[in-house]
C-alpha cells in the first residue's frame, strides 16, 4: 500500500467509526435483550417446575444450536411471511439478542448453581419467600459471579455484530465495501482498519468490565470461570 492508499483510508476513518456506531447500537440492543431474556430462562431452569424447565432448556438449546446467520435470516425473512414488518436492524437485534439469551442463561445458570445451597436455606430461615430469596440473596451474588463469563459473552457478541452485514444492516463491513468497490487494492488495509477498531472495542470493553468487576467485588467472593462461546 502506498501513501495515497493510506490517505484514502485515513480520510475514510471517520466514516468507518460512524458505521461502527451502528455495530455498537446493535450490541447494546442485543446484549440487553439477551440479558433480560437470559435471566428468567436461567431462573426457570434452576427453580422452575418441570414443564417450564423443559421449555426454558428448549429455548436455550435452539438458540445455541442454530448458527447466528440462520437466525438472522429467519428473523429477517420469517416475520415478513406472516405480515410482520421488521427492519434489518430490529431483526438483527432480535436474532442475535435471543441467541445471546441462550448463552447468557447458561452463564447465569452456572452462577446461580454455584451459590452454596446454604444461602437459600438461610434466606428462607429468616422468613423470606422463595422469590424474595432469589431477588435479594441469590441474584445479587450470582450476577457478581457471572461477570467474568459475561465479559466473554460480551467480547463474543461484539464481534458477531458484523454478521448483521449478511442481512444488509449498514454496519462497518458494508462500509468497507464502499471503499473496496472504488479502490479494490485497498481491501487489505480497509479490513485491517476494521480489525483494529474491533481490537480496541473488544479489549477496551473487557477492560471496562474488569473494572466493573473490581468495583462490585465483595470480599471472599470469586468465580471460577464458566466457559462460554466466543
Amino acid at each position, binding site marked *: 500500500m502506498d501513501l495515497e492508499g493510506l490517505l484514502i483510508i485515513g*480520510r*475514510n476513518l471517520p*466514516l468507518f467509526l*460512524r*458505521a461502527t456506531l451502528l455495530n455498537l*447500537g446493535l450490541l*447494546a*440492543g442485543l*446484549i*440487553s*435483550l439477551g*440479558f*433480560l431474556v437470559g435471566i428468567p430462562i436461567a431462573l426457570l431452569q434452576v427453580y422452575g417446575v418441570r414443564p417450564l424447565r423443559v421449555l426454558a432448556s428448549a429455548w436455550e438449546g435452539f438458540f445455541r444450536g442454530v448458527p447466528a446467520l440462520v437466525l438472522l435470516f429467519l428473523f*429477517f*425473512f420469517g*416475520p*415478513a*411471511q406472516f*405480515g*410482520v*414488518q*421488521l*427492519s*434489518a*436492524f*430490529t431483526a438483527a*437485534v432480535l436474532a442475535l439478542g435471543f441467541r445471546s439469551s441462550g448463552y447468557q442463561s447458561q452463564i447465569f445458570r452456572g452462577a446461580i448453581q454455584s451459590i452454596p445451597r446454604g444461602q437459600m436455606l438461610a434466606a428462607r430461615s429468616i422468613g423470606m419467600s422463595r422469590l424474595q430469596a432469589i431477588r*435479594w440473596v441469590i441474584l*445479587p451474588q450470582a*450476577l*457478581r459471579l457471572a461477570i467474568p463469563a459475561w465479559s466473554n459473552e460480551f467480547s463474543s457478541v461484539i464481534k458477531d455484530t458484523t454478521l448483521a452485514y*449478511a*442481512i*444488509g444492516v*449498514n454496519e462497518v463491513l*458494508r*462500509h468497507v*465495501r*464502499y*471503499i*473496496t*468497490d*472504488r479502490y*479494490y487494492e485497498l*481491501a487489505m488495509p480497509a479490513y485491517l482498519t476494521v480489525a483494529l477498531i474491533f481490537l480496541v472495542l473488544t479489549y477496551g470493553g473487557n477492560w471496562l468490565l474488569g473494572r466493573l468487576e473490581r468495583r*462490585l467485588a465483595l470480599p471472599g467472593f470469586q468465580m471460577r470461570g464458566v466457559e462460554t462461546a466466543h
Partner: protein
Amino acid sequence: MQCRIWRLTAIVVLGMVLTLSAGSLQAQQPTYKVCSDIPWAPFEMVTEGGEFFGFDMDVMRALAVLGGYQIEIQNMAFDSIIPAVQAGTCDIGASGFTITAEREQAVDFSNPYWLSNQAVLIRQDSGWTSLDQVFCCGNRIGAQRGTTGAAWVEENLVNQGVDVELVLYETYPLAVLDLVNKRIDAVVQDEPASQQSIRAYPDVLTIVGIIETNEYFGFNVAEGDPNGLLPVMNRGMTQLGLQLDLLLTEAGWKVALQITPGSPWDNLVKAYFGADAETVTAAWLACKDGILNAQSYDDIAAFAQCMADETGQ
C-alpha cells in the same frame, strides 16, 4: 451496595429501549422506504462520504418530488430486497431488478424503465474471442446470487450439461473483483454494469460477448400495491421523458422504451451510462444540491442538465 447491581440493570434496560425506539421519528409527508443493494454502478452508487446516488437513486428522488412523497434509501443485500418488499419492510425495491415471471409472483412491478442484456466479462489475458471458448472446459462463471444473470447461467449452461461451474456472489462488484483476481474466468452481468466494470479496469477486463436476454428493469412494490405507488411512479417516469411503445415484432409484441431527447431522463441516462464512475461521482457531488433539495419538475430538469454538463455528455 445492594442497589448498585440493580441500578446497572435498569440502565441496561433503558439503553435497550432507547436503541429500539431510535429512528421512529415521524415526518409529515408520507415517507417510503426505497431499498437497494448499493453499490452497483451505474444504477446504485455511493460517495466516499456515504451518500447514495446512481441512476436508480436519482430517478427515485425525482419520482418522489413529482409524486409528493419523501423517500428514505435503505441499503441492503440484493436477495433480501424482494422478501423485504413482500413484508412491507421496504415500500419500493429499486436495484436494477429485471422483471421476471418468478418475481412477478412475489411482487408487483412498475413499467419497465430500462432494457438490458447480459454481457459476458472476461479478462483480456485469457485471450478468448468467442462465447464458446468461455462456456466450456470447466470454466468458472461468476454471477450474483438471485440475479437473472445467475439464472441464465444455471438454466442455459449448467442444466444443459455445459461444462462450466457457476460461482455465486453476494454482490456483483465482488464477482468482478474475483475475476480480476483470477479466481473465476468470466462474469455474466447486466450490460451497463459490465461497461462500468470495464471502465474501472480498462487494461484488465473486456466484454467477449452479449447474451441477448432482452430484460426489462422495473421498480417493485408489494403485491396489490398497498400504497398506490405504481401509477404515481409510472406517471412520473413519463413526465421525466420515458415513453413506452408496443411494437409488433416477429417474436410477438415487444415493449420499446423511447426517451425524449433533452428530457431529464435523457440527460440522466447520458450522464450515468456515458462516463466512468469517477467522473459521474464528481459530477453528482457538484450537482447534488439540485436533486436533494428539488421541489419541482424544473429543479429536477436543472439537476439532470447539470449532470449531463458535468460529465461532458
